[in-house]
């Protein structure tokens, strides 16, 4: 909408929240693809790859201040390619958002609103999130930074209470490990760091962009620590053999929350309440950056009204898509393609930009 800037801390909150949402959705994939409890190796590999990829990308974004990767691509690539890239990001964000909404709506329906139609739950989530999206990045960033404090952190603390009677030796065996499985699950782990795709847009909205490199590194480190901690939590609680069968590992973990003196029987409801705030924030964030991608692809002055275009598309996609657990057998290749493109597009842009700079100086 109007020019708005966010603080580096708000940017970090956005990146961590969005990454967490996708890490929890893709966790069953990480658990089932590897034969053994060594998924943390995959996460470390993914984090290292992204960590080193960030340096040239941040350098390029600092050079083109206040420009997202898409607008940089618009400047350095031919029009056709830049449009294609823009459309790719739009479709990617729309798909990711609809999967997030669908998965979350299914959890709400199963655990809380058993008899409410799924479509009703999805449209209500969508309308509520769209209202916040239309207000702009500053509102969304405020929501995200508050959500981290009042929802995300308590959510993680509550989950820790589920480790009563957990078997910590379930993290073994470490060696010999399934090398093929670890390598095969790296694209899924890279995609789990969804904040990497978001930072390509959000970094241009930060007030002090010189700090972006530090913030991006902090994001990778914090996100990977959280990802590994959550993975290990599921492993110590259920063991690798049982966790492979779980549809929503986090909900299953929350069923075991055992806070001394707590009188709730359905402790997963308490966790779900926090998860509602986290997921709503993530949906707003992704919807906003879809708006931004649309604005830069179609060269419009404002982006707020794009959310009205998104609403029916997201609704139809969310209703039509099968649940995440039904898609797992078929999403191996799409994940490889998506995570490769997410990584390669900004890297190719930095390469092309560096070459054109060299050519100009020559």
């Amino acid at each position, binding site marked *: 909408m109007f020019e708005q800037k966010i603080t580096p801390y708000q940017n970090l909150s956005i990146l961590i929240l969005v990454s967490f949402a996708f890490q929890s959705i893709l966790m069953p994939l990480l658990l089932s693809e590897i034969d053994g409890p060594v998924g943390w190796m995959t996460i470390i590999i993914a984090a290292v790859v992204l960590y080193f990829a960030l340096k040239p990308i941040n350098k390029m974004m600092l050079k083109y201040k206040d420009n997202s990767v898409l607008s940089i691509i618009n400047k350095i690539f031919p029009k056709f390619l830049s449009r294609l890239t823009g459309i790719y990001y739009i479709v990617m964000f729309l798909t990711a958002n609809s999967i997030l909404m669908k998965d979350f709506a299914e959890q709400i329906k199963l*655990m*809380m609103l058993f008899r*409410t139609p799924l479509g009703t739950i999805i449209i209500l989530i969508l309308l509520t999130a769209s209202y916040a999206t239309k207000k702009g990045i500053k509102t969304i960033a405020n929501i995200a930074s508050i959500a981290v404090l009042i929802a995300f952190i308590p959510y993680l603390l509550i989950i820790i209470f589920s480790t009563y*009677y957990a078997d910590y030796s379930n993290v073994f065996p470490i060696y*010999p490990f399934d090398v093929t499985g670890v390598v095969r699950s790296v694209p899924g782990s890279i995609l789990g760091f969804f904040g990497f795709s978001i930072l390509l847009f959000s970094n241009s909205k930060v007030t002090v962009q010189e700090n972006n490199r530090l913030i991006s590194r902090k994001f990778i480190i914090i996100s990977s620590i959280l990802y590994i901690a959550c993975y290990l939590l599921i492993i110590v609680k259920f063991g690798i053999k049982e966790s492979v069968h779980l549809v929503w590992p986090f909900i299953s973990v929350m*069923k*075991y929350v055992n806070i001394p003196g707590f009188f709730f029987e*359905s402790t997963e409801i308490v966790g779900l309440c926090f998860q509602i705030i986290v997921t709503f924030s993530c949906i707003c964030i992704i919807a906003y950056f879809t708006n931004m991608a649309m604005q830069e692809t179609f060269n419009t002055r404002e982006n707020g009204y794009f959310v009205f275009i998104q609403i029916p598309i997201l609704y139809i996609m969310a209703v039509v898509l099968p649940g995440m657990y039904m898609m797992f057998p078929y999403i191996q290749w799409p994940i490889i393609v998506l995570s490769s493109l997410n990584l390669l597009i900004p890297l190719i842009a930095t390469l092309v930009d560096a070459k054109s700079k060299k050519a100009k100086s020559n």
Partner: protein
Amino acid sequence: MFTDIEVQMKNIKTIIIIIITSILLTGCWDSVEINKREYIFAVGIDKNDKALTFTSEIPKINEGSEEQRLVYTKDSENFSDFYATSYLHSEKAISDRLMQVIVLGEDVARDSETVKRIFDEIQRSPQMNRRVKICIAKGKAQDIINTEIPSNPIVGRFLSEMLIKLKRENYQDVYTFDEAILNLGKTGNTMIPVVEINEKSLKVERAGVFKEYELKGFLEPDEVAAVMVVLNPNKAKIRNVNIMVEGTNVSLGVVDIIMTTDMYLGGDKLTVDYYATLNSYIDSFIIGSNKLEDQSYLNKIKEEAIKSILAVSESTLYKLQHVYKTDLLKIKEGLFKYHKQDYEKISDKYDEVFEAADINIHLDMVIKSTGLVK
């Protein structure tokens, strides 16, 4: 930019939308009040000719009657069928969200297909908590649920608290459905508490040996204690060791156990050595004798005590290896976690390897104290 009237109109519209939204978005359109619900606290499942017999216990809340609970018995195919039938037979809505205990009848526990179906339904249910306690009834689960306990009329609460206590004090390894299914998934074996009628109450002393979702047999209290020592030596409880030394009854209490385990898998030959040091106190002797000051007498006490404990341990091991052929000691799990390469060579014939395994217990006892008197 906007006139006062336009701002006012905008505010009024916003307020109306907020009011309508907050009424419509509460999500309580299908709610049922608590006094219109019946919460099942305990369920007993037995087999009959055609299907299963479900016996449910429902505490009465705030009804002012003398009866503290209702007990329903229905024949159903499974839990869903049972709820559907119960729904039509009561003016209230049945809910299993507060279920405390599931009691499997002995006949059900001995049928692996039925157990698998029941366990699958429980783990799929988003309403049923996986932390629901589980136990096996010696005989019929219906008799257990129907037991009238004067001090605690709600059998579900009684059993739940009993099982929590036994788990906390390390008398039993498994007390929840979740632990049972995790063990069965990991190793194919588990030990589930057995509940029996004890005069006007219930007791949980023994444990049922489960292998591949089928009850193979029972372990006596001493045998359960021996298994618990191996599984969790730091918190295990050994009952008083009562022995006769030179015509005098001596009772020892084991206060803590230090244990190390050595596992070796050479080809198909598995050797497991447990080295345990039992630190114990003398609990009772006899007044007037000062033999406890004599080191050689103390050594005799130690020898007799070790013999007594070893006898129980070895008979337990024999039962597990040769009678039930069930690895409750989690040796398989240890091999998988710490000797994975060797384990993978024998994983498909582990049962035979376990039966032929050389499992040894080496005990040492240290009498730390004779109490407050010599």
